[in-house]
């Protein structure tokens, strides 16, 4: 099977053998794909394939092969690289790791692909980082079929009430709880959940939204933490010192 000029974003690459690279890419029609870019490094001397194959850059890839690991035939840029500066670069890497860990290979994700591109553009602008990341996380969970609904109390089988407290049960969803029974850092106020569902993550709510989505995502990561999050934590810690 040969695929020509498939739009793609590179999520991650690592060196392979002498001059090749193993590429993890995200495409609309095939979802996450692993490709071998043979001689990518070598060509870097004459051409610029290595320079083209960078994350956050819209690409057009042609590849072929029958197995899980296909071969890259050609790569060309489909636009300018999206420049993420400073902290936003780490956020971009976080998105990539999230996709790498959660996306299933070889299943189409047209809408998510478009939304990923949009998210990168938002990140490169002035938009608040937290808001951009949370919207992407919610959308990602939705597109992958994990279907997390911040407005649904799974035990009561009804909508979340603004004045009640809720906690997140892995595998189930949100369940109403008593404010005394559950420590503050693992319970969520109903009115916050309602705001999160509307996409209002700003201000004081950003911490709540982060805490909630972190719990939901952790459930699907299978126990292994995200490295980018750890790096970001070290980075923040250093800033405090």
């Amino acid at each position, binding site marked *: 099977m040969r695929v020509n000029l498939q739009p793609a974003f590179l999520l991650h690459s690592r060196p392979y053998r*002498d001059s090749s690279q193993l590429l993890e890419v995200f495409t609309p029609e095939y979802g996450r794909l692993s490709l071998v870019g043979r001689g990518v490094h070598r060509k870097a001397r004459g051409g610029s394939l290595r320079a083209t194959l960078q994350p956050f850059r819209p690409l057009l890839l042609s590849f072929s092969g029958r197995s899980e690991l296909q071969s890259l035939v050609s790569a060309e840029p489909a636009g300018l690289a999206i420049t993420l500066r400073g902290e936003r670069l780490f956020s971009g890497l976080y998105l990539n790791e999230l996709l790498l860990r959660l996306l299933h290979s070889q299943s189409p994700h047209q809408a998510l692909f478009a939304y990923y591109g949009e998210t990168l553009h938002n990140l490169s602008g002035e938009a608040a980082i937290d808001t951009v990341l949370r919207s992407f996380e919610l959308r990602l969970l939705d597109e992958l079929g994990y279907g997390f609904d911040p407005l649904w109390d799974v035990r009561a089988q009804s909508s979340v009430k603004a004045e009640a407290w809720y906690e997140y049960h892995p595998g189930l969803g949100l369940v109403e709880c008593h404010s005394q029974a559950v420590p503050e850092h693992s319970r969520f106020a109903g009115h916050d959940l309602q705001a999160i569902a509307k996409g209002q993550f700003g201000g004081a709510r950003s911490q709540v939204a982060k805490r909630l989505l972190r719990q939901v995502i952790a459930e699907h990561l299978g126990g292994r933490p995200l490295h980018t999050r750890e790096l970001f934590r070290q980075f923040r810690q250093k800033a405090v010192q």
Partner: protein
Amino acid sequence: MMKFSPALMDLIEALRCLPGVGPKSAQRMTLHLLERDREGATALAEALQYAMARVDHCQRCRNFTELDICEICSDSRRDRHMICVVETPADVLAVEQSGSYRGLYFVLMGHLSPIDGIGPVEIGLDKFQQRVVEEGIEEVILATNPTVEGEATAYYLSDMLLPRGIKVSRIAHGVPLGGELEYVDGSTLAHAFSGRRKLEQ
């Protein structure tokens, strides 16, 4: 099928650890060494053994050396207030050959690559910070590669150094000498424009 003796087979197999050497080239090298250049082969074996036993990282810049402190770090004619941060020993060589820099180096032996689990400690940034403070460095030049990981590393470093009042600069990205604008990649050209330099009389 004819087979070589075990010693020969071992040598062929061992040579394959070199980059770009497959079974056929390894066999050719082995036979060449045995047939024509036994002296060279002995020298190679000795040099390999010596280097493997002795060469380690310089305690200051992490570059490869068989000394405790490498020659560049101990050279008194160099500017001791400037440090250039690079990713690999090959980068040190490249900068040295350009002859345009007379300060010290720090070799990261990689770059931040969070997805692979390579964080600031793995590339020795804690050591680097300590060194900058202890040696009273005034200027740090970030010469990591202009890749996403290289930029992340540069940003992490600048964020670490700037609050300490250290001058930090990043190498320029732009059109290569002798290049033609028509063939330069769009992103590079965008960098070249945003980093343009004002001409003065």
